[in-house]
């Protein structure tokens, strides 16, 4: 048992701080400051990715031979913390966190050579085509069909909720190649070009009035079989591998600490009859409760990280960090809402667009409070809903 962090990490932190300070631009920080979703404004997020790419830091969690940094888990989390502190926007996860690892794990050498460099550099922008109108939580029931035709597949069907398909030039997706046996057994993992004839994209506007998601229609879309990752009908294994990778690599606590500190900063500025919301003991109590919950999660994550360092696999317990991480995220956005009161009411979609010249009708600290609250409702739905995650823990951990 040991809580100390070695001296080398202090030096590491300083080195990271220096790099960020010297390279991040005001425009990029603005995108981070105004981000109301895990999906930041793509232009500026990609600009930040390019800066990191030049330094070799675009994908710290990838194995070094494919362009990772070779940092250990502590270093990776220091890097994440410093990015947050500098208001750097989160990098778009679909390419770096999802597609890349799948290709690393299951792709052929040619596929790795073709796709990975363009993921790192940001030349390719990937979206994730898993969900369908009839297949959400029950992903294995997906129906988009890829029919074999010589060296190609002919794909027909509909994908839904595809985040940022409107910006993407590539999609990784799950399609059905067989209707025999268990539903999981007939699924194949495909990469495709969004410019292929027969693909059309329609926007879905969110309840926060922002366009993040889309419906993607496939009408006789011809995709070369060479674009398949893994074996035909073995896409479910690829998808499961991706999930494991995603969970192992994700840490909520640093961002949560940061978000909670932001709420404190807001509360200190909200004037109530001459004092601030922060001075209110009712409010402070709720703040403290959340800080304790985050600390608990932080050390749960530390325990998982420490197990990883010792070569163990995080396993289904990682569903716990997803549940707690998203629930606390949501609670933080609620606390902010309570802090700003009626300043949350004006609809300010245009004002919080990075680079916007629209004038805010509320104090700056209140601008993103409502959009964040609304958007955060999605965190307990996507990436496997929290009901589904609890089901996984009940079955895999508790053995029920």
């Amino acid at each position, binding site marked *: 048992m040991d809580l100390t962090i070695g001296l080398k990490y202090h030096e590491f932190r300083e080195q990271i701080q220096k790099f960020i300070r010297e390279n991040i631009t005001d425009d990029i920080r603005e995108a981070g400051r105004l981000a109301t979703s895990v999906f930041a404004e793509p232009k500026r997020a990609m600009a930040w990715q390019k800066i990191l790419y030049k330094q070799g830091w675009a994908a710290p969690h990838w194995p070094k031979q494919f362009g990772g940094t070779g940092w250990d888990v502590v270093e990776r989390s220091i890097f994440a913390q410093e990015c947050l502190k500098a208001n750097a926007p989160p990098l778009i996860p679909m390419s770096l966190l999802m597609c890349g690892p799948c290709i690393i794990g299951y792709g052929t050498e040619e596929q790795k050579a073709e796709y990975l460099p363009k993921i790192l550099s940001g030349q390719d922008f990937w979206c994730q085509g898993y969900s369908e109108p009839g297949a959400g939580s029950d992903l294995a029931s997906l129906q988009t069909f890829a029919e074999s035709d010589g060296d190609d597949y002919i794909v027909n069907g509909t994908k839904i909720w595809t985040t940022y398909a409107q910006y993407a030039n590539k999609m990784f997706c799950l399609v059905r190649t067989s209707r025999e046996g268990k539903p999981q057994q007939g699924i194949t993992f495909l990469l495709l070009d969004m410019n292929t004839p027969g693909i059309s994209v329609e926007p*879905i506007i969110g309840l926060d009035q922002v366009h993040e998601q889309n419906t993607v229609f496939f009408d006789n879309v011809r995709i070369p079989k060479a674009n398949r990752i893994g074996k035909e009908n073995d896409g479910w294994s690829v998808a499961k591998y991706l999930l494991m990778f995603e969970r192992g690599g994700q840490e909520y606590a640093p961002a949560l600490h940061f978000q909670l500190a932001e709420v404190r900063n807001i509360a200190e500025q909200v004037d109530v*009859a001459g004092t601030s919301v922060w001075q209110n003991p009712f409010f402070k109590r709720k703040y403290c409760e959340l800080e304790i919950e985050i600390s608990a999660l932080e050390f749960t994550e530390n325990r998982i990280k420490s197990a990883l360092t010792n070569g163990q696999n995080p396993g289904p317990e990682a569903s716990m960090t997803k549940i707690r991480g998203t629930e606390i995220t949501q609670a933080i956005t609620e606390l902010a809402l309570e802090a700003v009161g009626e300043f949350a009411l004006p609809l300010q979609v245009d004002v919080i667009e990075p680079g916007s010249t629209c004038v805010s009708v509320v104090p700056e600290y209140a601008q993103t409070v*409502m959009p964040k609250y609304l958007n955060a409702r999605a965190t307990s739905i996507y990436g496997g809903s929290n009901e589904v995650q609890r089901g996984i823990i009940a079955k895999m951990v508790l053995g029920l």
Partner: protein
Amino acid sequence: MDFSLSEEQRMLKDSAARFVKKECQFEQRREQMRSPLGYSDEQWAQMAELGWLCIPFNEEYGGLGGSLVDVMVLLEELGKGLMVEPWLSTVILSGRLIEMLGTEQQKQEVITAVCSGQMKLALAYSEVGVRQQLAAISMEATPRADGFVLNGEKTLVLSAQAADQLLVVARTSGKAGDEQGLSVFLIDPNAEGITLSGYATVDGYRAANITFDNVQVSGSAVVGGVETSLNDVGLNNAFDSLQVVMNEAILAVGAEAVGVMDLLYQTTLEYTKIRKQFGVPIGKFQVLQHRLVDVFMQCEQSRSVLLMAVLHYVESVKESNKSISGLKVQIGKSGRQVGQEAIQLHGGMGMTDELDVGYYFKRLTCIDALFGNVDFHLERYATLV
């Protein structure tokens, strides 16, 4: 004890329900919310025709002499139709304030015009730093020989863009923190020195911040008249009347919230019966069943607290603060739970602008922020136990 509706109340409920069904379809509402005006003038005229603008006012001024029970019956139904008309600001916040505070002549002129649908009003009371602590209002109205000069800024004035006249709360004496010294002015929004910066709110309403730069008003603009408002009794009236009006507004949005919650509960329940995953309707999953049961119980508990608060208010306007704060806390907490569960159980669909679910959720969220949120009313409640 008798919680049944009278014959008239049942008719009011039915006609409001019919109106919502016929005139307030979701797509139509969404169109209106996106239009520059934010609501439909024809619908406002219909509301006047149906007598919904005169319910709480005295017969002398063209009103129906109804009680807050009638307001409750109406608002619960209108809530189900995502009301965006300037009803709350015209009838309750402003109309009732004039009825409580105004001179005979003001009541005759203004309330009669409100009842007939000819005049819409907005109440400008909040300011940065006020946060529903009415005594903290600091905007000044400085007396001059022939009237007053107003300077300052009001924030989040609900439905201000629609208003033919503004009611503005300002200080004629004392300082921020004093309950005494507040007066209410009836002002033409086009008067020189008034700048209105309007915006839409997240729940589809309109609101504005309004700045007053040396706005000159005559003595007759004081609601209740110069004489009363310049003596201490009159000044106290403004504060007390504002408190009463806020309580009535809470009862109104409380009823609206109960209607919204009921609708969300029904919609979500239906959805869990038709949405299939893993080969069964998701309503078959026990965890979702229990969550829906909780939603159902929140709806019922909210309705109960609403009835309690309305009946206490009707019984004694003065003694009802505690019940009304209790109501605001209950609908704030239940509204959040019911709204969030409605989204969660709809999955991705719940997050879109395409379903009405998100709109009801946003309305509940905004209702909590209006007229003091859960925290504010828990604290007020705590001072009363």
